[in-house]
């Protein structure tokens, strides 16, 4: 989310740094307006939010746009007529208020952490000494049981698709095309099984089929199957022999 360096003279870069996210910006607007967080004038705040991200050039930031869309959804929901006398009407803003309160609390914790880190950074530890590397590192404690438990845990955590990893084998349609042309130059017709040879792999079969269909489309050959499930004959296409 940091802007390119050459843009630093533009105002929004500073602003972008000033807010740590859409909720931060939203809280800022709410505080600036001095409105009750439990009764947010959602229309006004949504408009201001949109105006801010427009002015600030936030348009690229998906996170802000997502929040803007969320605010607009709430705004719409507020406009819908409420069922008469329904006590169970749920304020469309409830979830937003909950998120804002939660975020505000995290902000408070973050401030506390930053203060502590600031105090800590006022006390320097000894700088790293150059003699240190000469000393041998402490001996290592390695237990087989722990290694096994770790391996087991990792294996269990692996997503299923890794268990049945598909080894990519590229199709060789060019090779199949060459082989078909070779066979056709020697004979006028041949059987598909001849082309595939003994014990073809799946990728061989697919490669040959693709090559056959492509050559048929180009008019170089015709493919015929006389009876269902019978053998497939490949024959030279006489009319287009000259291509």
């Amino acid at each position: 989310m940091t802007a390119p360096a050459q843009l630093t003279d533009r105002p929004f870069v500073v602003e972008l740094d000033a807010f740590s996210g859409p909720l931060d910006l939203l809280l800022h607007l709410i505080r600036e307006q001095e409105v009750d967080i439990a009764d947010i004038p959602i229309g006004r705040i949504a408009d201001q939010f949109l105006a801010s991200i427009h002015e600030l050039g936030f348009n690229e930031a998906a996170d802000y746009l997502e929040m803007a869309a969320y605010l607009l959804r709430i705004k719409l929901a507020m406009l819908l007529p409420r069922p008469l006398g329904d006590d169970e009407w749920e304020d469309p803003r409830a979830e937003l208020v909950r998120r804002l309160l939660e975020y505000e609390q995290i902000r408070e914790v973050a401030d506390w952490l930053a203060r502590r880190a600031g105090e800590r950074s006022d006390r320097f530890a000894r700088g790293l000494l150059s003699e240190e590397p000469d000393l041998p590192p402490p001996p290592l404690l390695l237990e087989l049981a722990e290694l096994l438990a770790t391996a087991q845990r990792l294996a269990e955590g692996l997503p299923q698709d890794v268990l049945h990893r598909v080894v990519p084998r590229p199709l060789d349609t060019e090779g199949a095309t060459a082989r078909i042309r070779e066979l056709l130059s020697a004979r006028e017709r041949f059987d598909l099984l001849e082309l595939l040879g003994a014990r073809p792999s799946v990728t061989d079969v697919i490669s040959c089929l693709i090559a056959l269909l492509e050559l048929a489309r180009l008019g170089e050959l015709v493919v015929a199957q006389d009876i269902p499930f019978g053998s497939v004959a490949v024959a030279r296409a006489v009319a287009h022999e000259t291509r």
Partner: protein
Amino acid sequence: MRSLTKLVEAALFAAARPLTADELAVLDPDATEVDVLAALEELRTVYDQGGHGVEVVEVAEGFEILTRRECAEAIAEAQLVQRPRKLSAAAMETLAIIAYRQPVGRADIEQIRGVQADGVLRLLLERGLVDVVGRGEGIGRPLLYGTTPAFLELLGLKDLNELPRLEELSVALRPQGEAT
């Protein structure tokens, strides 16, 4: 100073990292952990009462000697030592969430902050402030993060219990079980 105190001082000086009472006990084959703690106390008193520029501090991984806060400004201004770079607000917020919700997955962090967390998480992992501590349930068994001893060291905390209780913060907390 007793001879063990002298050794403890020298060891803490040379180590450039916190040492546990256990580690310090190795300095003298006859010393117990109680002896080491007494030596640390003597050293602390000497530094405090002698008006020294350093002090004994207990941190996450043990004990270390640190310069006193009131000396920081002069040392930093004289450019003899650089202060560590401050973390961004985004990084602090992410740390706050991980510290209080650990073990916690990326999706939860992003939900609370309303911002993608990849970059910040990578930074925190690189700086060793958080680590992967397990995997959660659910699709893809997401990685769960927790704080490390380096996190405590960053804040000068002995353990996580020193973090403020959420009830003490001015903003009210929603009940824990109410997670989405």
